[in-house]
């Protein structure tokens, strides 16, 4: 099954979504990503028990930071799916890409170009 997802998404593989910390998400935004999301396992099915739950809380924290800075919190998201769900992975990727398209470039990048 070879499924294609939007080419403007850069996938970074980690052993567990619980490995993704607040600083990783922030750094992505800081370095110019227009959006960043975590695709973790289904809730209740984490191999390390609570990795994906922790990831969700960190995503929520970053959403709040962005809100404080006047940046759309929707640029950061948490999704849950099982490893066997290839089509769902593509669906999420498309959904996120569309969302970011609608939001437009991150304010961080807009200002960089203007300057």
């Amino acid at each position, binding site marked *: 099954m070879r499924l294609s997802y939007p080419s403007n998404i850069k996938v970074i593989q980690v052993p567990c979504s619980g490995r993704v910390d*607040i*600083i990783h998400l*922030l750094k992505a935004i800081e370095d110019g990503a227009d959006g960043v999301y975590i695709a973790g396992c289904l809730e209740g099915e984490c191999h390390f028990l609570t990795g994906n739950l922790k990831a969700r809380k960190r995503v929520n924290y970053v959403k709040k930071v962005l809100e*404080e*800075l006047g*940046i759309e919190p929707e640029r950061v998201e948490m999704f849950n799916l099982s490893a066997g769900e290839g089509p769902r992975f593509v669906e999420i990727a498309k959904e996120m890409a569309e969302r970011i398209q609608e939001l437009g470039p991150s304010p*961080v990048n807009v200002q960089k170009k203007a*300057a």
Partner: protein
Amino acid sequence: MIIADRKPLAELLEMIQDCDRILILGCKGCVTVCNVGGAKEVGILASALKIARKKEGRTLEVDERTLERQCDPEYIEQVKNEVGDYDAVISMACGVGPQFLSTAYPEQRFYPAVNTTSFGGAVQHGVWEERCAGCGQCVIHYFGGMCPIARCSKSLLNGPCGGSAGGKCEISKDVDCIWDMIVRKKTEQGRLEDLLDVKPPKSWDTARDGGPRRSVREELVQ
């Protein structure tokens, strides 16, 4: 330990409005334990401030460092060679840190990144509560090991007041009525008589009311 909460980013951005290069100084003491001002939080704050600046089309150079403690001159001294290289320094320690820094380096500006709130501990992961008011004359043993000065909204020594309902304080459903807990514990222990005498007025001269406190251990003073 000392508990603190991070200041809103808007307030911090306002402080460093005219700065292009700053140092964020964390502390490995209490604020690391209550996850507000350790190395990790220093990194998060640095990134958040940089994002904010990029959004404005400006750049901000941020260096990060975390000291063993910011309440001892020997650790404060560790930044003496670099502290002058910045437009300002943000301290993520409790209120003590920026004061020690300001005293040691009078030419530099130091800004507090956190609001120091209380002396307390973690009641569950991610939740901290006040336990001590630092009154200078501990009396918890009279009250089943619970401090009504820190934990009763009215610091009553002869409580509970008439606002205690459902084990909660009248000021908020999120605040336990400590007097409810004291009475229940003493009742369960069969020691209710401990609460039946009228506790006389407390002397506040050892508390902040008596002026700034100072502790001296003669055997250590050089």
